[in-house]
């Protein structure tokens, strides 16, 4: 009689389902993955490869490693990076050498594809793990990556 077996099967499967959720209700603490995000800012640690935004590290002498070769600018698919560069005379050799004036990075256009960092021959730009990028005005997302007055580290050639 399928009518009664239907009832039996129905009740049986319902009870198995309720046992699964009931078990989790009792062991609610076990295996919790939830992170209380804004409250755990101090302890929150992102993975080292996490792509937050592109930054240009400077050392204590305010020197960076960017030679202004523009490979990142060419590699970028959507024009996120613009480099304003100049030629300056190097005192020792007396030759003209390329140097960056401003390394402009439009975070608002960046898709975090990582092609610029892949393309950089001198590792001048790296990923930062910062992800809290919300601002009230879009123009604030346009950043100049090299600090004012900085210069390229000695001995960096592309």
């Amino acid at each position, binding site marked *: 009689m399928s009518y009664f077996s239907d009832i039996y099967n129905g009740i049986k*499967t319902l009870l*198995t389902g309720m046992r*699964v959720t009931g078990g989790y209700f009792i062991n609610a603490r076990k295996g919790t993955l939830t992170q209380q995000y804004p409250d755990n800012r101090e302890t929150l640690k992102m*993975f080292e*490869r996490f792509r937050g935004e592109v930054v240009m590290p400077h050392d204590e002498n305010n020197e960076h490693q960017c030679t202004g070769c523009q*490979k990142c600018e060419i*590699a970028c698919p959507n024009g996120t990076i613009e480099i304003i560069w100049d030629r300056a005379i190097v005192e020792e050799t007396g030759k003209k050498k390329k140097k960056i004036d401003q390394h402009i990075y439009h975070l608002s256009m960046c*898709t975090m594809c990582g092609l610029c960092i*892949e393309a950089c021959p001198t590792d001048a730009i790296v990923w930062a793990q910062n992800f809290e990028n919300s601002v009230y005005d879009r123009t604030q997302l346009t950043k100049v990556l090299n600090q004012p007055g900085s210069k390229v580290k000695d001995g960096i050639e592309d």
Partner: protein
Amino acid sequence: MSKDQLIKSNFKTEEYFINMGPQHPATHGVLRLILTIDGEIIRNVEPDLGYIHRSIEKMCERDSYQQIVHLTDRMDYLSSHINNEAVCLVVEKGLEIEVPERVKVIRTIIAELTRIASHCLWWGVMGMDVGALTTYFYAFRDREMINDIFEETCGARLTMNYNIPGGLMFDIHPNFVKRVKDFITHFKTKIPEYDRLLTGNVIFQKRTKGIGVLTKEDAISFGASGPVARGSGVSCDIRKIHSYSAYDKVNFNEVLFSEGDSLSRYKVRIQELWESLSIVEQLIDNIPEGDIKIQTKAVIKLPKGEYYQRVETARGELGVYVNSTGTKNPYRLKFRSPGFSNLSVLNKIAKGSKIGDLVAIMATIDIVVPDIDR
């Protein structure tokens, strides 16, 4: 006068249109369906697309081959790694380079993890579409572990862009193998739980069994692929037929069910979770040593000709057609996306069913709208 005619002569029914979407929680994105309904019965479904069309194909015509890869992340964002792989494979085919074994194995592992993550999300959303909210949390809990693995190795959770033509962007993280093994042991206990909670459930069976039946002939003719076609008994697994990467080195079964209804499409995906898990398990212990990329030229120029590469994403067959004239940009690049062909099935199988079933049918077709709109 027969009973039906009597009813028809006495009760006049009127067909009318309703819009489902574009901002409807059950359409899985900005997809608008124009439904012609007669009471509760669906008479016609017409999808209205293009709300998030970004014209990726046109953008590809001006981008270099390295830059195209990251655009494919944004197509089917749930199997982004497999999309990347497709473009990389077609470029490698054009340049006639053979990537190292290590690259192939790592690509395969991550592709299968992507498939598991995608099916996990689908399972949660499937449960939610038929009204069970708890499935969503359980599925996301397991998916979170995979996303963490990706984040540690690739740097991003969804739009990974880990493949480049010629290999991988960087090597796997030292923790990768351990984390994946942890995940396998964890997930093996969870799939039976999925079954207990939803698959065997009497309400779920009632909602999916015999609903939205797609016959084998229709599945082939509509160009359906992936779990949608395999639920109808069409053997179409690209991993088996046109094997790529390291799929020829692993043992796995192509999951086939012949009923063609929503339940069999559901079962295909649940079985595929097991198969993907077994593929990962076979490969994770013996990732060969070696290089992680072959250095390509900074400007890749494909020789003149036409190239076609098919891969199996979580939703079905993704084809990349590249027509090159020998310059650094493709002359024409076409993505044959699985979602687009699978969506065209919808009108055929939803016709005549109740309006409440449409959501369940759409959930089993597993629509990702950016994949359709490209």
